[in-house]
């Protein structure tokens, strides 16, 4: 489905480079404190904390969700999320709700960033509700369209210790059926923009076949007006491109700023037939990119696709950034997108392979 359905009524330019985020956002410190108290954790000084009940935590999560959704709107984003305030981590959150997973403790991802990588110890089954309540709350709060990021079946199968299934593909297919169930529930609740997060995709050579099959299951029987994005990051894209163009998705959301666009060539060798949601901000550097710098990054996207196919987004979830930096990066990103749109309208930017306009 095209991105035009998400164009705000008061959009100032003819061109529309939809601005959005990948999903996660720094949690307010008070939310983390309430969560620690609810889960009876010790603080860094190992002082026993006074506990709070689940109801208090739920209220804090609602408050945080409302706050960050509005913070996204204040930054000027066209499509918003709630910053995943209710989610601990992109695999953990789902594994906690799916039967068949067990947790043994945190493992390293990089530097001092850890996640509670679960083990699959029996057949996976749909357990507690995943995201419908999160979506309904955010959509109710938001004045802009809401996107829901959901961790994809391949990543839920790959970023775990598989103690039970014969192959990763077997596990991914079972999980894809569960994700499909959730996506259908989200669509029934009114959601029209769903982003499947598959950061594990660029990790293993040849596994794009597994992902392709799993995605077919995920999107089975969805209405036409639902936009499906696929987020991929921190991998060798030459391993998966152009094969991924066969996937049943509308948009590919790619990390590219971290590597200073060294991999951009991968996508120009073969026509990029889907929409490109391009990473124009580094999610792992606290220094805020200037509007000019971001505009230059956006223009790199125009070397791959015409403006009609371009979406503007950070590289990845920004939850590890200081909150002020995260906000300023988004605000600069929106301003940069609006300025590039105006320059496009004025014919000041040459667009490679521009599609004919709807008026032609």
């Amino acid at each position, binding site marked *: 489905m095209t991105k035009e359905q998400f164009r705000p009524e008061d959009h100032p330019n003819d061109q529309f480079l939809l601005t959005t985020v990948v999903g996660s956002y720094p949690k307010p410190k008070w939310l983390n404190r309430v969560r620690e108290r609810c889960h009876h954790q010790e603080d860094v000084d190992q002082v026993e904390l006074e506990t709070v009940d689940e109801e208090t935590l739920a209220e804090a999560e609602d408050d945080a969700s409302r706050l960050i959704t509005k913070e996204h709107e204040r930054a000027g984003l066209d499509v918003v999320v709630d910053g995943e305030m209710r989610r601990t981590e992109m695999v953990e959150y789902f594994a906690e709700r799916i039967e068949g997973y067990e947790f*043994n403790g945190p493992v390293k*991802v990089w530097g*001092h960033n850890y996640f509670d990588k679960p*083990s699959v110890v029996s057949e996976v089954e749909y357990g507690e509700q995943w995201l419908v309540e999160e979506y309904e709350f955010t959509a109710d709060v938001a004045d802009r369209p809401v996107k829901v990021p959901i961790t994809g079946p391949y990543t839920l199968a790959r970023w775990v210790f598989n*103690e039970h299934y014969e192959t990763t593909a077997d596990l991914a297919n079972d999980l894809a059926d569960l994700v499909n169930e959730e996506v259908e529930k989200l669509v029934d609740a009114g959601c029209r923009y769903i982003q499947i997060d598959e*950061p594990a995709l660029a*990790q293993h050579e040849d596994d794009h076949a597994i992902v392709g099959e799993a995605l077919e299951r995920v999107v089975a029987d969805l209405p036409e007006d639902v936009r499906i994005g696929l987020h991929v990051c921190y991998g060798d894209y030459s391993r998966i491109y152009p094969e991924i163009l066969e996937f049943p998705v509308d948009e590919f959301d790619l990390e590219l700023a971290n*590597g200073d666009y060294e991999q951009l060539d991968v996508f120009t060798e073969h026509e990029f037939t889907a929409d490109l949601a391009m990473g124009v901000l580094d999610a*792992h550097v606290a220094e805020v990119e200037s509007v000019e710098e971001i505009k230059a990054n956006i223009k790199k996207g125009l070397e791959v696709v015409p403006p009609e196919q371009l979406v503007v987004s950070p590289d990845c979830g920004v939850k590890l950034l200081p909150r002020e930096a995260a906000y300023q990066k988004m605000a600069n990103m929106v301003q940069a997108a609006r300025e590039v749109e105006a320059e496009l309208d004025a014919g000041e930017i040459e667009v490679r392979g521009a599609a004919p306009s709807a008026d032609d």
Partner: protein
Amino acid sequence: MTELVSTTPGLFPLPDWAKRDLEGLKGHQKHDLIDGSEGAEITAVYEQAREEVLSQQIDAGLDLVVEGQLRWDDMLAHPLAVADAVDTRGIVRYYDNNNFYREPVVTDELQASGDVAAELEAAAEVTCDHDAGLAAVLPGPYTLADLATDEQYGETAAFVDAVGEFLAEEVAQFPDVEQLTLLEPSLVQAAPGDGLDERASEAIDAVATATDAEVAVQPVYGALEERVYAHLLDADIDAVGFDLVSDHDANVYNAQEYGATDDVLLGLVDGRNTLVESPETIRERVEWFQEQTPAADYVRIYATANTDLFFLPTNRFGEKLEALATAAATTEVEA
């Protein structure tokens, strides 16, 4: 009779309390990772954590203990990440894992930093009071070169040579260790082509001859191509490694077809899965390898994990150490 020696390839998970403490002290971004200039507070946490994992190995009964490399934020790229003449840039994927390290870019003539030697000195102070021998772990030169980007030496082969010399200088600064394992995942995952395979072996040779310790080379994440394996046997090393977890058939084929070193190192427990192998399973895997290579009469078999161990949560990590130690507790097995 073959001596069975239990050990591990290092790169341990940080104890959970140290994960929490260091998160607060160091931060979450690229520039917060270890670069060799950490202050007293951070150093104190690592010292305490090092003592803890050394005690854990000694208590488990491992024959050869390792320092644990808890400071290696950039995993096997660490020796370059803390060296002068190296810039660390964007984060890049660590093989096919959900793990990342900062890309080290070599911009000038490499010189040893003594960083790993200092870690081993500290470990030796702990182990000297115990019966356990101390082993060192380093990336092999081909792997370290493959993990890095070269802006100084030009040709890939020249860069591999330079990294080999750099590692040899690091090794020359080591305190006395009983054994040195060179981990070589890139020899498997990014196999060197014709000509470069020979240079990779020569670079290993340069590192091995810099120490009096027994030297093992452990390929990781699969089996070596035959050509690469054959060249590796030309290096002056005491033991070559076989990953019997991820690809036992291809590994044993190399040993059957080309023979092996007098000592061998066997990856017997899975460093990337929480399913804990029993000591019986570990012993069966040793026996299977011996049965499959009946012509060989190994002097020593190192019983170890097939990969670095930071992938595991600390509870399963501890259980795997104990399983390896228990499996090797009967110190001699029938040839």
